[in-house]
């Protein structure tokens, strides 16, 4: 009896000591030697394990880029898969250091959920996927439809607003995971599947016969997707922010994984490139890193254009156009703050 008492006392004492403050994420990550990155449970093209079990995709590359900047090795990432519902809890509870999970930046998430959003890395909008055989050409003809939605996303709110604003009725079928949602759509439980247009492209590519389904032209919402970190560590937020900006700026400046070694070997004639390379100025020290941080990112992961082409561009099953996500110099709205 005395022994069990002792154990109880020790347990209490241990759990009192167990919790520590969550201030310097950078130190924690470097001490751990591994970055914990919250991603989706699986969305082809954005984040999914490949046939060898290695995580790959558009969002995954941003995780790897941060690891390259902070730890020097883009492979030192532990991926924390999350559903739409668990992602913010995982981030806020410290299970993840950073989140890249097709996450829409909204005011309530930024301010009320206490997240700090990183620069937008994909401009998206919510659309509808429907069977061609239904003969529907526009989202204005959807009165009375059954709609499958993944719960815990901004999607279900946009959907409610859209149908209400247009005076149409619908039956929502709120499913926990993307996989079950697609299974219900392909089993014809629903007439429509709705999510961000990029997610629809990914979903459609994974269906048995992609050509039997169309994505309706209407985009019913703005979905600026970006990474996020929790409130309270500005240095860590700055690292995330400037890694994303460096990736976007690199494309604009014509720095790619192929020519970064050559361009960054010594200071050249373009001061912007020099600052990105760290051969001029000391941008790295402003965010607590060395001067080569951006070079490592571009070497190991590539610039924005390379990442896009590799995972979701026209030559991939998703076949997404650059559209809004082209550089501002090419008619898009991708416009990263300069590194200076």
């Amino acid at each position, binding site marked *: *009896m005395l022994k069990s*008492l002792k154990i*109880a*006392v020790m347990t*209490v004492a241990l*759990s*009192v000591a167990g*919790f520590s*403050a*969550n201030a310097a994420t950078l130190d924690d990550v470097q001490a751990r030697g591994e970055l914990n990155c919250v991603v989706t449970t699986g969305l082809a093209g954005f984040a999914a394990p490949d046939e060898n079990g290695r995580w790959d995709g558009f969002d995954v590359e941003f995780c790897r880029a941060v690891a390259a900047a902070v730890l020097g090795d883009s492979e030192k990432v532990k991926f924390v898969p999350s559903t*739409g*519902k668990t992602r*913010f*809890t995982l981030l*806020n509870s410290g299970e993840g250091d950073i989140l890249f999970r097709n996450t829409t930046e909204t005011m*309530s*998430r930024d301010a*009320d*959920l*206490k997240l700090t959003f990183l620069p937008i890395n994909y401009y998206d909008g919510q659309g509808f996927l429907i069977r061609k055989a*239904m003969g529907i050409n526009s989202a204005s003809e*959807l*009165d*009375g*439809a*059954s709609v*499958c939605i993944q*719960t*815990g*996303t901004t999607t*279900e*709110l946009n*959907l*409610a*607003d859209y*149908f*209400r604003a247009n005076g149409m009725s*619908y*039956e*929502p*079928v*709120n*499913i*926990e995971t993307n996989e*079950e949602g697609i*299974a*219900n759509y392909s*089993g*014809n*439980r629903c*007439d429509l599947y709705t999510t961000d247009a990029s997610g629809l492209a990914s979903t459609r590519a994974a269906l048995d016969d992609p050509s039997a389904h169309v994505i309706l032209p209407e985009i019913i919402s703005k979905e600026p997707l970006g990474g996020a970190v*929790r*409130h*309270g560590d500005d240095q860590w937020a700055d690292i995330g922010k400037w890694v994303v900006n460096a990736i976007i700026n690199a494309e604009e400046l014509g720095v790619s994984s192929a020519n970064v070694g050559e361009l960054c070997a010594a200071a050249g004639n373009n001061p912007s490139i020099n600052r990105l390379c760290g051969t001029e100025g000391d941008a790295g020290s402003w965010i607590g890193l060395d001067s080569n941080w951006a070079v490592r990112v571009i070497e190991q992961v590539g610039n924005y254009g390379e990442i896009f082409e590799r995972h979701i561009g026209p030559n991939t099953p998703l076949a997404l156009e650059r559209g809004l996500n082209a550089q501002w110099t090419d008619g898009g709205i991708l416009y990263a703050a300069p590194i200076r």
Partner: protein
Amino acid sequence: MAEVAVSPQRNAISRLWNDKESRSVIIQIITISLVFAFLAYIIHNAVVNLQAIGKGFSYNFLWQPSSYDINQHLIEYNSRSTHFRAMLVGILNTILVAICGIVLASIVGFVLGVLRLSKNWIVNRLAYCYIEYVRNVPVLLHILLVHGLIVHAFPVPRQAISIGDLTFMTNRGIFSPKPLYEPLFLVVVVLFLLGLAFMWWFRRYAQKVQDETGQHYPVFWIGLGAIVGVPLVSFFLLGSPITWDVPELKGFNFTGGMVVRPEFIALLLALSLYTAAFIGEIVRAGILGVYYGQTEASYALGINRGRSLSLVVIPQALRIIVPPLTSQYLNLMKNSSLAVAIGYMDIVATIGGISLNQTGREMECMIIVLALYLVMSLIISMIMNWYNKRIKLVER
């Protein structure tokens, strides 16, 4: 210990400690204070950590518009309703599936239990195989399987299976005519309630007469007449004061009428068929637990098979059956939280799911969900304990 015991100068503390009774009191006090200290620490820790990231503890969000829609709502609800109302919708959906599930599971379970005792080899083995299969597969898989079967086996609305052009079976649900009551229908309702009240009185009266004179009344038939017959006759005499709203195919789906969604059917079937397997075994145990001599004795007294079952075996078997049955009912109710996997909008899917995610109030929402399940479990336990007390052996 032994040293202390032989020491002539024992102080008060060691005397208290060596006394068996006071020692147990001391240990209990220490244990309880430790448990509460631990709980207080955990709660304090949560509050401090929430404050550290700037999230205060507040239930104000309950009065904000929920902004999402729910396909099955027993009360008026739309996306402009509050999160509180969304929670009520979720509670009602959970209660609905729990009650229907408990009734269905009990019926199927009792039948299974009896079949399992059947002397017919095939019937017996079939029940055995069913029970062993169902009990050994996780209930989540049953739910997904049944839902998948319904979604894939039933046709889409445009090819609906029509039953007399009134009821339509589709993979979006079973659509049937909805009764619209006219004011005169109230008379029928009142007569039905009067019938119930009459029956309640008449059963006691018949029992009394039987106890005193041994005379039998055909209670069942009189009851049927009072509860069903009289209201039915009055219904037609009043000129059928009901009109029907028949569902019709419009665009993508049927509109009008009543609908039972496949998510509800799947959850109900999976939960009740799963729980029924356990109840079947409990019933079998209960019946086998009644000494066979009792049955033989009642046969010897000339009581027929049916009445000896209902008067001798079942009342005694119930005493064995009811306590474990309570746990099964609780399990069924709690397992209904798996509904979120197929999109049935219960408590977990509404307040513990979408509301939680949209407002970011994890702590607050989870406390609500925990409290609701606790309350519902306690209510079920209370009812079953009351019933258990009523049927237990009265010892004189």
